[in-house]
């Protein structure tokens, strides 16, 4: 009998695990998920709303792919797991057995706790159904408010902007995403947001949502008691592991399902990965819960090895991430925070016209590269990673930036001004 593997969640984590198990073994694979019948790219939901894509374009594999690769798809919700008898209870009251179970149920949007939070027109953005709801909630409206200035918040602002809906964007920090971005980058993005006529309210929180007589949003009250008229309130204050259905079961949960570096839970033959997992002992400078597309994918790859008998530790490698703030692309490599990590010093260059910038952090005592931020510049991941791992000398790095530039052909190369400014600030020591 082939090994029976059941995966809950057909997101990037569950599907990557399934695909890699299929490559490595003849296990019997079943993926259960309630949101959609087929795997799709959550990161592309904004483009569906904006009309850049149809929903079907967000599905990376054609529908025949799953049968051909013998990956069983079941669209259902898991209500309960009987870990003792290795049985899963689905919402249609049917049962499913497993030998090995992988929980990859992702996240759900965090909600606010203010008066009016349940009014019509108040919502978060995570699932496909949220986009459909947003389509309804924003039909024909003029004004919207977004609460929370993270990555999903700015995507939502861009989505609404594409429909000519005026946006008031409330953020807790002084500048957009200043909890992660250093002040110059955060300021640059805040300015860019203003160019789109999106109204950023720094250091402002939501106090109350006010409804009209039909129970729909009419306005909000901010922490400084200003009333802002709006017909839609987007709550984008982050996501949290989607593990409610496991509360009060034997599986150990803190915020997410607790796992070790092999993605094993406290129960034998049960694993968790992706957005819903929380590392009991996170690595130095790494978060305990990794809520990213990339990390979900890499966790899935490692986990498939373990399931197929090649026990493999999840290795995040050099941290990287990327995003796009309206028209400005952002790429980051290494451990980059809003202030340099302990023992690091920093160099920042910005194009006189704004919108293009780069930052390199390096160890203040031995002058080795620790990380990069790029705004409006594309940079080769392999080059950045290899330099960071090799602890390359910062002057060598700056003199060889050309090797890593990844902008399309004919684009202006900013190597020279960057190097000039760097050498002014940090003259090369005479060897």
């Amino acid at each position, binding site marked *: 009998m082939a090994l029976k593997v059941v995966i809950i969640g057909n997101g*990037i984590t569950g599907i990557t695990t399934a695909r890699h198990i299929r490559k490595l073994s003849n296990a019997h694979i079943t993926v259960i998920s309630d949101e959609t019948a087929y795997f799709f*790219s959550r*990161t*592309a939901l904004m*483009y569906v709303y*904006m*009309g*850049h*894509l*149809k929903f079907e*374009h*967000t*599905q*990376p594999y*054609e529908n025949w792919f799953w049968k051909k690769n013998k990956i069983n798809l079941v669209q259902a919700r898991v209500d309960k797991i009987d870990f003792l008898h290795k049985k899963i209870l689905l919402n249609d009251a049917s049962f499913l057995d497993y030998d090995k179970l992988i929980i990859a149920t992702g996240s759900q949007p965090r909600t606010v706790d203010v008066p009016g939070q349940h009014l019509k027109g108040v919502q978060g953005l995570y699932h496909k159904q949220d986009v459909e709801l947003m389509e309804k909630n924003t*039909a*024909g409206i003029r004004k919207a408010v977004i609460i929370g200035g993270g990555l999903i918040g700015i995507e939502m602002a861009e989505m609404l902007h*594409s*429909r*000519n809906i005026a946006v008031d964007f409330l953020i807790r920090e002084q500048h957009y995403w200043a909890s992660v971005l250093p002040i110059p980058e955060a300021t640059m993005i805040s300015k860019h947001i203003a*160019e*789109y006529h999106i109204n950023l309210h720094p250091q402002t929180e939501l106090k109350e949502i006010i409804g009209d007589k039909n129970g729909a949003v009419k306005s909000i009250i901010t922490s400084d008691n200003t009333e802002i008229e709006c017909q839609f309130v987007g709550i984008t204050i982050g996501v949290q592991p989607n593990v409610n259905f496991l509360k009060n079961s034997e599986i150990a949960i803190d915020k997410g399902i607790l796992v070790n570096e092999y993605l094993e839970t406290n129960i034998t033959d049960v694993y968790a990965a992706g957005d819903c997992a929380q590392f009991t002992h996170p690595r130095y400078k790494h978060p305990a819960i990794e809520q990213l*597309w*990339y990390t979900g*994918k*890499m966790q899935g790859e490692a986990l498939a090895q373990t399931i197929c008998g090649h026990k493999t530790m999840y*290795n995040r*490698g*050099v941290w*990287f991430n*990327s*995003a*796009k703030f*309206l*028209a400005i*692309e952002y*790429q980051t490599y290494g451990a980059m925070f809003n202030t340099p990590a302990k023992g690091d010093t920093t160099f920042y260059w910005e194009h006189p016209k704004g919108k293009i910038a780069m930052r390199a952090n390096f160890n203040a005592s031995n002058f080795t590269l620790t990380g990069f931020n790029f705004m409006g510049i*594309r940079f*080769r*991941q*392999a080059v950045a*990673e*290899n330099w960071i*791992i090799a602890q390359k000398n910062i002057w060598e790095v700056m003199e060889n930036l050309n090797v890593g530039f*990844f*902008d*399309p*052909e*004919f*684009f*202006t190369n900013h190597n020279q001004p960057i190097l000039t400014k760097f050498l002014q600030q940090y003259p090369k020591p005479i060897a």
Partner: protein
Amino acid sequence: MKDEQISMALTDNSEASTLQKTGIILFASGILSAIIALAGAGNAQPVLFFWLAFGLSTAGGLLYAYTYFKNPSGIQNNGIFKNGVNNSGVIAWLTGLVFTGFYIILYWFPQYLEGLIRATDTFSVLLRNRPADQWFLYGTIYTLAVLVMGIRFIGKYRHSRYQVIRTLSVMFFQTGFAFLLPAVLLRLNQPEFYFSYFWPLKYSYLFPNDVNYFLNSGAVGYFMVFWGAVMTFIATPLLTYNYGKRWYCSFVCGCGGLAETVGDPFRQNSDKSLLSWKIERYSVHSVLVLVSLATILLWINSYTNGTVLGNFSGSFAKSYGFFIGSIFSGVVGTGFYPIFGSRVWCRFGCPMAAILGIFQRFKSKFRITTNGGQCISCGNCSTYCEMGIDVRAYAQKGENIIRASCVGCGICSAVCPRGVLKLENLDEKGRFEGYTKPEIN
């Protein structure tokens, strides 16, 4: 309500939206004038209707193109899939029908174009020192369309210098090499020759008839034969080795130029399924075999003075010209833009693309590099690839994209929100090696 919102979403402010509406009205008046000219008014008042038909529609087109410069620079794809014209809806089929109908009339019923042909007479005499015919009319419309829609394209993608440069290049080659130069040659009583088209796309340039005709037209004719042969047999492989097929398809070719400019609103309609890739490979390579066969047969026939093949080679070549040269490249190739995407002909039919593709796939420095593990599988690249390449399938695995059909338009790289793709010419060695994450402890 909904439609109004969407058309507004296309442009950022009401000023732009007014401009856009004015542009559309002007363009429609131009088309209306063209119809009146066709009904007979063109014969009576040629100059007036030249200006009305071409002037108004060009002005309208330019105004519409100008609105793209008013939007913030960056990717401007808002609402594309909410709009019936770009989106294989009923309107797309209707647009396709109009395009197709135009080609059918142009090829087989040019008498119905008489009114417009006469309207272009003055212009034709000015350029070529002879009255217009349907091909001159077609060339004029074609070139104007490439220019106007080229400006729109530049406005839309102006944040990308790669896009701007290659669009200026196709506009230049269409206007200079495919429109003005042949006209001037005629004026100088030289053979009409398109220096930007080569065998096998312009198949007749290596057919015995054309070669003999050129060779009999003196020094200029000799140069034309020489140019054609050098371009086909020496320049094509060399340039493709160094830069990929894009040097031709996205910088020089007039068919490619039309697809990139007029066809841009439809690029997303190309089918990305594995099945259509299969069909594409059979179809495009069959055309290459057919045109090669036609050429070889004609030469055998010409050497043997018709004793071996009789009329066969001639009628074979004629059928090729009819089915591939006219129906496929013209009627289907452009008429079906709205349904199968802008590069239907380039993808399924063009024998030049087939040859360039074989070089590109097996012997070239060109590739699209994937930037490590940064792909979020969003699908923008695949959706906007006019050649129907499932770019994402490679990008999400960290593999480079090396596909025979890629014309190097660079749109996948432009629309990618994570900066994952780069078109580049690097050392041939290692071009198939993808990205693997370096291990650290």
